[in-house]
């Protein structure tokens, strides 16, 4: 094989794959169809709650597109970070949809399912063996973090995918996976350079974001022994040397190197050369394996339940002293509820949009706003406590008598009732740590399932 056509259908499967660019890519007969389905970018909630960021109907639509195309071309379909967070519930939801599609179209294929949820006892053992450390600047891992975690996943590298390809998989559905590995596995399996394959994966896992103008359309990377050529499958999007090089910055702390499972991608010597107006060739990227293979763990802890309420300050007498009013009402609410609720069971915060809602303590500008949206935000041990505190807080804000008050009918323009809205469960990232492993596949058990004419065998 002299070249390989590496196709990314979507950087976030389940949010609607743009159809024309996808069909154009398929018409070019890629050697595999890859899609990334998740990220930590969406916050800790989905990993904790076991739900998907995308709507099941859209996941079905997208999955049907890639699955039917993959079977029609008879090339592997490779999906990573199934169901946004890549834990067990996310994987199972994705598989349920996949089985429905297989049945409806009477598809036949070999399916590999790769699990990524990690047992707490395994992580505790790694901690005890001194084989766990923070990924970047954050707290050291403790047994408490592990025990309190709602769910922990490991981010797999390319090795579990390669194992699945070795086993003859036509379709691979993996839990949490390194985005680039989803796309690098097939080239590396076929003997292409690992540095080029990982760099290619890093770029195409974001679909056409590396183009000008950037977008969510499918993208193709054509890989040979010395480099790869990028082309967005939407003709209006141009992959220029500048746009592709600049993409190395995206969501990464360093454009010259990316630390990945098992090693680091070194882009210091990467070169970006135009082929024509819409295509750029990349060469010179190198892979440096680590002497010790590490896997990144992601885990979340449950903080409780949220209720929130919205109301706007418009009176200039109140907007001018909003922060002081909100601080005083927080104090009043704390005192009022003292004895009714344990203060450790809830947290109350007024978020003042128009003052510093987006930036908090990082806000550098102070200006007199026309109006201020106050979000009364409460997270508590139970939904009942959250709702009760939220109602007391927004009512006390509504009728607080601040200095110089003229408008004694109430302080908030409330846009709708009921005013206290459930925000559901609340989680926080508590694990983002690297552990040393002996075998890159040890955390990621694989199941092989044969599907014939839409029915599962065995």
């Amino acid at each position, binding site marked *: 094989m002299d070249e390989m056509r590496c196709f990314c259908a979507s950087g976030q499967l389940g949010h609607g794959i743009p159809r024309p660019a996808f069909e154009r890519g398929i018409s070019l007969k890629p050697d595999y169809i890859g899609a990334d389905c998740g990220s*930590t*970018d*969406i*916050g*800790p*909630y989905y990993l904790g709650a076991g739900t998907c960021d995308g709507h099941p109907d859209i996941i079905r639509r997208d999955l049907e597109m890639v699955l039917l195309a993959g079977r029609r071309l008879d090339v592997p379909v490779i999906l990573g970070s199934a169901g946004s967070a890549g834990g067990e519930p996310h994987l199972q939801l994705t598989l349920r949809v996949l089985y429905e599609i297989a049945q409806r179209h009477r598809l036949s294929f070999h399916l590999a399912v790769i699990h990524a949820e990690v047992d707490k006892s395994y992580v505790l053992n790694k901690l005890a063996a001194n084989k766990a450390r923070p*990924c*970047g*600047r*954050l707290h050291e891992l403790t047994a408490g973090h592990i025990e309190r975690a709602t769910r922990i996943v490991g981010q797999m590298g390319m090795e579990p995918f390669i194992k699945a390809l070795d086993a003859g998989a036509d379709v691979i559905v993996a839990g949490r996976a390194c985005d680039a590995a989803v796309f690098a596995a097939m080239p590396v399996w076929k003997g292409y350079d690992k540095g080029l394959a990982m760099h290619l994966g890093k770029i195409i896992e974001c679909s056409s974001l590396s183009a000008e103008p950037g977008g969510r359309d499918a993208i193709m990377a054509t890989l040979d022994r010395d480099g790869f050529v990028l082309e967005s499958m939407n003709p209006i999007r141009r992959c220029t040397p*500048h746009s592709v*090089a*600049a993409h*190395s*910055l*995206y*969501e*990464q*702390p*360093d*454009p*010259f190197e990316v630390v990945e499972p098992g090693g680091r991608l070194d882009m210091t010597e*990467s070169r*970006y050369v135009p082929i024509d107006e819409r295509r750029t060739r990349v060469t010179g990227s190198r892979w440096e394996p680590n002497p010790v293979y590490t896997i990144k763990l992601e885990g979340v802890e449950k*903080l409780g339940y949220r209720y929130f309420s919205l109301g706007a300050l418009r009176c200039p007498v109140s907007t001018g002293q909003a922060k002081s009013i909100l601080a005083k009402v927080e104090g009043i609410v704390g005192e009022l509820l003292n004895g009714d609720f344990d203060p450790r069971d809830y*947290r109350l*915060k007024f*978020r003042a949009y128009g003052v510093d*809602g*987006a*930036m*908090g*303590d*990082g806000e*550098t*500008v102070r200006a007199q706003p026309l109006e201020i949206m106050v979000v009364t*935000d409460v*997270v508590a041990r139970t939904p009942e406590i959250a709702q009760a505190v939220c109602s007391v807080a927004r009512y006390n804000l509504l009728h607080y008598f601040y200095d110089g008050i003229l408008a004694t009918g109430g302080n908030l323009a409330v846009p709708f009732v009921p005013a206290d809205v459930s925000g559901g469960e*609340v*989680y*926080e*990232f508590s694990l*983002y740590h690297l552990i040393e492993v002996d075998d890159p596949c040890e955390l990621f058990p694989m199941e092989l399932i044969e599907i014939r004419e839409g029915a599962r065998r065995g």
Partner: protein
Amino acid sequence: MARLRDLCHTLRSKNAGPFQITFDAIFRTEDEFQRARESGVFTPGNLAQVLRYPGQDIKVVFYPAGKAIKVTVPRRAPSGSFDDTDVFGCQQHAPLLDLDIL
């Protein structure tokens, strides 16, 4: 004197994982990139005042191939935690817009 926003075609902030935020200033031309690079503005000490992070926490990388300057800081609160104000970290770039570049 020019404002940073007038030299850049992209000026953004974004999560780099749940515990870091990264800022990208991507310049329109090589000259403008060099001008900003040599302006002395992109030092941890200066950025500490502008972004309100301790200087020792701020990492600055110059990236000629992308005509870009990257600044990475630890988040004030992890993405999506109770004290967070910006789950995606994508609106934290505002203080950089009006930086004066000599």
